[in-house]
C-alpha cells in the first residue's frame, strides 16, 4: 500500500481543484484510459468556514463561509477525494477520479493532465502578479538634514 499522504499528492490535488471541469475533461480525453471508478460519496454541495489569521500569522478568526463541492470515488481499491470551490459537481467528480488514478498512474497521465494544468495556472498567477505589480506606488521619504 503506497503512502498516500505525500506533498506530491497535496500538490496535484491543489492543481486539480483549481482546474475547471472543461479543462479536466479536455485533458482526460486525450490522456491514457483510466480504470473504472465507483461513487462513494457525492458529489455533494455544502458550506465550509474559511479561517484566516490576524495580520497573516496571528490569532485565527472566521473569515467567511463559502460553498464547496466534494466528491469521493473508489478506483481499483484506492479512494480519490476532491473538494472544489463552487457548485460544479462535474468538476468535483473529475478531480476525484483523477486523484484516485494518480495514486497509481498509468504511463503519461501526469505529463498529459497535471503538468499542463500546473503550467497554465502558474502562467495565470504570474500575469495577475505582473498586473498588480504595475500598480504599486513607491513612497520616498527624505530624512531631515541636521
Amino acid at each position, binding site marked *: 500500500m503506497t503512502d498516500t499522504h505525500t506533498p506530491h499528492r497535496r500538490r496535484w490535488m491543489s492543481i486539480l481543484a483549481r482546474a475547471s471541469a472543461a479543462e479536466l475533461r479536455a485533458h482526460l480525453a486525450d490522456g491514457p484510459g483510466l480504470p473504472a471508478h*465507483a*461513487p*462513494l*460519496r457525492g458529489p*455533494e454541495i455544502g458550506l465550509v468556514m474559511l479561517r484566516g489569521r490576524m495580520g497573516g500569522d496571528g490569532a485565527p478568526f472566521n473569515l467567511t463561509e463559502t460553498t464547496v463541492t466534494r466528491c*469521493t470515488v*473508489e478506483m481499483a481499491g484506492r*479512494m480519490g477525494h476532491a473538494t472544489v470551490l463552487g457548485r460544479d459537481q462535474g468538476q468535483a467528480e473529475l478531480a476525484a477520479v483523477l486523484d484516485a488514478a494518480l495514486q497509481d498512474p498509468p504511463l503519461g497521465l501526469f505529463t498529459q493532465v497535471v503538468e499542463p494544468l500546473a503550467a497554465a495556472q502558474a502562467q495565470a498567477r504570474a500575469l495577475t502578479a505582473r498586473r498588480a505589480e504595475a500598480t504599486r506606488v513607491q513612497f520616498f521619504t527624505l530624512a531631515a538634514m541636521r
Partner: protein
Amino acid sequence: MTPGFANPVLGAQSSFRAVLYTLSHPGSIRELKDAPHAPAPLNPAAAALALALCDADTSLWQDGGSAIAEWLRFHTGAPPAPLHEARFLIATGAAPPLASLALGSDEAPQDGATLFLQVAALEAAPGWRLTGPGIEIATDLRVTGLAPGFAAQRAALASLFPRGIDIVLCAGSMIAALPRTTRIEVT
C-alpha cells in the same frame, strides 16, 4: 470502502421515519429501504441507522473492528467514545452490560445512550410480550440471537426511570425498538 445511502437525503429521511415509528410503537417491525451494504459484521439496518442518526456531534462506540470503524468515520464523522460515555452504540455481537452504558440524569434523561443491537431475526410472533406506552394492549415480538439474560438485565434498569437506555434491534435490514418505558414479559 463501500458507499452509503444511494440517495443520501431520502435514505436518511426514511430511516429516521422508521426509527421514529418503531420507538413510538414498540415491538413493531419496520424495514429500512436503501439500507447500505457496510463491511461485515455491520448489518444494513445498523449501518443505515448510523448514517441517519450519527454525525460529528454524536459519540459512537462499536465492537465490530477496524473496517467498520473506518467506514463509520468516513460516512458519519462520529467521534469514538468508550462504552460508558458513548451517546450511540453499535453492538454487532453480544450486547454490552446495559448498566455500564450512559444512563442520563434525572434532569437530562435524554442523555441516556441509544443502543443499536444486532440480532439474528425479528418476527411478529410469540416470544416476548411487550406492554407499555405506545402499545394499546400488548405486542408480540420474537427475537432470535439474544443471550437468555437480556430481558432481565434490561428490566433491572426500569426502576431508574427517567434515566435509562433505548434499544433498537437490527436484523438484516429490519428494525424493532425498545424504548426504556416498554415492559417485556418473556413468554
